[in-house]
């Protein structure tokens, strides 16, 4: 593995986008991974549509163990019936649901089933989830070949990043609300995952004045515009699953698709 690696230097990372006031980070993380995979498959960088995911993806985002329990009684019978829900759009938390959140893995599952993603310019981002699905299969430009989950091992994460392109990752974003720059390496940080971002590279060392040592770090692309962080990017230190950044890592491979 190289000591430093950054997919931005290889042309696999589209410009930083802005999700606005909409909980759609999961869709940006997913398109970022797809853009990188598509670049590796075709040599072309295409900006892909988050709005397609926001409007059209209602895949199950959790393996739901929720039980709907119905109690019934009548003169002759009484009892309890339970059944599991899969994807009920009216049930909070069971599906990818636009500005109310989602999960990158289920968005990749949707992308695989739907046939792929359209270009950003053909299905532009609006920052709301009140529209209907306007997916046009004839305008698909990038398709999923397969996707998988990377183990909680930083060398494996780095190896998958270098081999397969930028990775969709989840993180706890509590320190990101006030982050301006530098390498974030908090002494304590919850591992409760609440934000989807894109891992695009890593560095071998950046000076940490208090700890008096060089600290390796991940380079993360966010979706809060270029005015946030370091031109839209975030650096977080490697080594101990800080803020849960190693916990949920997805890699995707794309196939070349010619739009008609």
């Amino acid at each position: 593995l190289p000591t430093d690696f950054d997919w931005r230097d290889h042309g696999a990372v589209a410009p930083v986008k802005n999700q606005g006031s909409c909980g759609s980070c999961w869709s940006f993380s997913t398109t970022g991974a797809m853009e990188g995979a598509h670049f590796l498959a075709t040599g072309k960088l295409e900006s892909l549509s988050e709005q397609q995911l926001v409007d059209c993806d209602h895949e199950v985002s959790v393996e739901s163990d929720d039980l709907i329990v119905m109690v019934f009684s009548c003169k002759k019978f009484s009892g309890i019936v339970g059944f599991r829900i899969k994807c009920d759009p009216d049930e909070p938390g069971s599906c990818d649901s636009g500005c109310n959140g989602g999960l990158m893995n289920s968005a990749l599952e949707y992308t695989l089933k739907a046939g792929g993603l359209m270009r950003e310019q053909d299905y532009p981002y609006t920052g709301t989830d009140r529209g209907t699905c306007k997916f046009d299969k004839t305008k698909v430009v990038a398709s999923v070949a397969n996707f998988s989950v990377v183990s909680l091992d930083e060398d494996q994460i780095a190896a998958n990043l270098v081999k397969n392109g930028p990775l969709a990752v989840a993180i706890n974003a509590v320190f990101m609300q006030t982050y301006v720059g530098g390498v974030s390496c908090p002494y304590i940080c919850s591992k409760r995952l609440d934000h989807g971002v894109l891992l695009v590279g890593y560095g071998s060392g950046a000076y940490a004045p208090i700890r008096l040592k060089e600290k390796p770090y991940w380079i993360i692309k966010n979706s809060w515009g270029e005015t946030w962080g370091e031109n839209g990017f975030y650096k977080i230190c490697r080594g101990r699953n800080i803020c849960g950044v190693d916990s949920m890592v997805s890699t995707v491979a794309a196939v070349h698709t010619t739009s008609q």
Partner: protein
Amino acid sequence: AADESSDDGDLMIRQVVGGEHEPNDEHHHFRLFKRRFGKSYASEEEHNYRFSVFKANMRRASRHQKLDPSAVHGVTQFSDLTPAEFRRNHLGLKGSLRLPSDANKAPILPTKD
């Protein structure tokens, strides 16, 4: 601890964390924040509320700075949002998520040589 630069006509805000602030400083920082991020509020009541949130976030940034000394924490475009508003409007990963147990696992790659 705040500074404006207009070299290229662009307003810059330096960090405002790490020290005790006079009330006038806080007003000044809030003004700079509103100008930089184009913020405006519908009523005086809303403005005052957002100012109180801004002050709380400056204290929070200061705490983050102590907990995370190798990064720089301070004013961002989210400085007038409560943590709950920030989570609701700018995050979006399902809180109760679990990956399916049958999710494909990536093959182990060689990492030596």
